[in-house]
């Protein structure tokens, strides 16, 4: 997309930064769907029909316990595969 502000050379690092911000939003969406889906998908039944895993109601176990583990896994994957090492200072030099 060309707009009237880009008649200068844009910092190439911003392309990477923008992509990583989008990945972060993506993970948040996955997080929300997982959290919401299991909580209300399994938790809306009457309590006497609940199943239990390790003593906890299944909705809670999947939504909050497994959900936390899964999201931690996804974040590790996101950082290892999706995020790039780039210098943050001007031209990568002059550290403060």
């Amino acid at each position: 997309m060309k707009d009237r502000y880009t008649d200068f050379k844009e910092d190439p690092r911003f392309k990477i930064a923008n992509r990583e911000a989008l990945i972060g939003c993506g993970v948040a969406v996955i997080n929300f769907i997982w959290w919401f889906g299991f909580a209300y998908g399994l938790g809306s039944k009457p309590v006497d029909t609940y199943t239990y895993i390790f003593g906890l109601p299944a909705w809670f176990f999947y939504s909050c316990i497994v959900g936390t583990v899964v999201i931690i896994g996804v974040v590790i994957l996101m950082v290892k595969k999706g995020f790039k090492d780039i210098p943050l200072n001007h031209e990568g030099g002059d550290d403060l």
Partner: protein
Amino acid sequence: MNLPVIIPLLIFLLIIILIGLYAARFVKSTNTFLHEYFIGSRSLGGFILAMTMVATYGSGSSFLGGPGAAYSIGLAWVLLSMSQLVTGYFTLSILGKKFAIMSRKINAITLIDFLKERYRSKWVVILSAFSIVIFLFSAMAAQWVGGARLIESITGLSYTTAILIFSITLLLYVIFGGFRAVVITDAIQGVIMFVGTLVILIATIVAGGGISNIMAELVSENPNLITPYGADGSLTPLYISSFWILVGVGVVGLPQVAVRAMSYRDSKSLHKALIIGTVTVGIIMLGMHLTGVFGRAVLPGIEEADKVIPLLAMDVLPNWIAGILLAAPLAAIMSTVDSLLLVVSSSIVKDIYINYVKPDADEKRIRVLSGAVTTTVGVLVLFMAIDPPDLLIWLNLFAFGGLEAAFIWPIIMGLYWKKGNAYGALASIIIGVSSYILLYSVYTNPFGMHAVVIPVILSFLCYVSVSLLTQKVNAVEQKAIIQKLWSV
């Protein structure tokens, strides 16, 4: 007086003061004082960055009010609290490298420094600085009261003595050590919070005779306690989901959180912090709130639910371990208050004094002034906290939601949308804050959601529409701004 509980607490406070004095050596020897004092010379590594994010964000409520609500409401409140998992990675990946790179380009050391360069508007700066000082001052006083009450209830000292102990410790390390002292103590406080959570969770499960047993007891008391709808069945999915804005993604807009996203050393630190932060925040939030629910089976009938964690600790753990553990909520409160104090003082010194009162102030004057302002604000909060005025309590209700509604779009859109301009930012701040205060006072939960949701949507619409409508005004300056921030 309960010595085995008091001694670990005193040792904890002493260690915190020593760290402050250690960090003070950096402040003394630096030749770029503001950089060191307010942002630790951008030297944060991944572990410290993660811990200071979690500790600043996780306040007393994660250990006292939150588990208290879980005790009364049941697993639904744990579900709600897990909307905070997102803060572990969202803030850092959204502000992420772009915020770090831009703040280096313009040498920003406060959130307002960034807003100042991005919008070049005196009104944006003044309005932002004003909201930060007012809201964070009241938030700080409320946390301060919490810290003193906690010391009071654990040690049996009088409230006044407790508040003096709390204040003197805090002021000593913040005034002399600045940002570096704050983040190192945050890291230690974060570790205490993390370990403390695991210890009390496990001890409570054991005391309750295992999870199955605890659940069975809760069901026999009130089956709703283990549903996602809360003890009286009144929490709707929409209401619980709306907390994703208040305590989840909206946290991006908090100045004390944003400033941390410009203080890390390099992109490796950021990557490491994303992982460590997510793990830490996940374990603390899950563990603490779950302990609150489990506590109901171990210690039924607690009247002041906020005290469930301290009471549990003293009940299920040997005394001296309880002493160490009770340092955790205190650590949570301190690590929040110290960051707020520094943000307020940086707003006064850097954003108002140096920007508009005396731009040519010399290094020595700034040093003296920074110390003096931090001290004055601290002492002022101390006096307010001894007997908090109603206005302060009222303002504190709006503090976090108000700041989120004010800053979330000027920050995010400022980073990612070149057309965003000063008029859009101003409209967004004014509408965000005022609609939040109005909605919250009048409806509390409009349309069954937390009151922060609608103001966040409104301030987004204002930001975009006003920016587009005023595109032609100041087009030349806008172009210069974009070129400065975006070009190589």
